[in-house]
């Protein structure tokens, strides 16, 4: 016993930092869970047009995205293509896409589903009109033209 007492002295023991990593990990997991990483890898180039009258897109979980723009892979041409989820699609695939999106959501949320059109500004309206007509046919009436917010210039 005497042996130990000699070594210990009268120093106060330091505060244990062993639980600090756990606290930080908790923070880490919180961030990992709350930030939505659901964004599909975009295969088309999109530079959104700017507008002043923009609204925030609410309830991100109820939004499905349709990307339209020229493919990033230039071998596929420069014409604008439609991208749904992770692959290129045709106008007639939109029907199925919307149906699947609708199916995956809760019954009560279905009327609030919004379709966000992320369209490159160089795109011609023809393809956008086709997509809009198709969305009308399937009853996805709420749409959102994705735009960047432009600062309002005071006159």
């Amino acid at each position: 016993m005497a042996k130990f007492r000699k070594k210990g002295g009268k120093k106060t023991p330091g505060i244990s930092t062993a639980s600090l990593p756990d606290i930080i990990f908790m923070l880490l997991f919180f961030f990992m869970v709350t930030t939505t990483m659901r964004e599909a890898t975009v295969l088309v180039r999109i530079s959104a047009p700017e507008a002043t009258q923009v609204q925030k897109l609410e309830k991100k979980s109820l939004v499905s995205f349709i990307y339209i723009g020229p493919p990033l892979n230039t071998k596929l041409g420069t014409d604008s293509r439609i991208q749904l989820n992770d692959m290129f699609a045709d106008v007639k695939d939109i029907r199925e896409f919307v149906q699947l999106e609708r199916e995956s959501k809760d019954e009560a949320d279905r009327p609030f589903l919004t379709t966000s059109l992320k369209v490159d500004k160089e795109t011609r309206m023809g393809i956008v009109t086709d997509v809009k007509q198709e969305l009308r046919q399937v009853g996805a009436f709420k749409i959102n033209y994705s735009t960047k917010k432009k600062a309002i210039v005071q006159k």
Partner: protein
Amino acid sequence: MARPINEINAGSMADIAFLLLIFFLVTTTMDIDTGITRKLPPPPPEEMPDIKVKERNIFKVLVNSRDRLMVEGKGGHISLLKEQAKAFLSNPNLLDPNSPEDMPEKRLVNIPLFGGDVWVTKGIISLKNDRGTSYDMYIQVQNELAAAVSELRDELSMDKFGMKFSKLSDNEKIKAIQKAIPMAISEAEPEDIGGR
């Protein structure tokens, strides 16, 4: 006799976790999606009777494939569009049932907050674009038209409630303003489908 095993120093564990945390904070894009929200009309029934709207009640905006504007039959410019649309939709006196010859007619709407029946403009903005119009131009036009409506709403809201329309929190008041100045932007049915 085995030597006592030293405890692994866990002090740096926190630093490692911090590194991970900062990595996630930096890489996750917290960008807020913004955009112009619109509601599409339901598809027209098979046999739709042509709805007759008087010429004076329509504000025609056409955009051609060269992104040129035609407003009310004359060449127009994007920078003037907002003022023109505002002038068309403006309704300075809600209680006056008559409007000048060149302005759209009015119809009676019951808005209790404004003291019962008021006269609201019948004006409709009709937007038509070509298949070759660029998306950028389309959004610019939509934006200018939306700006015209929102400015008119702001003005009325300032007049009646003393604050901007976007700052209103009372649902009743929002509804009243929306009724008094409807967002009447109609997009024409695209004329040709197919034949790209």
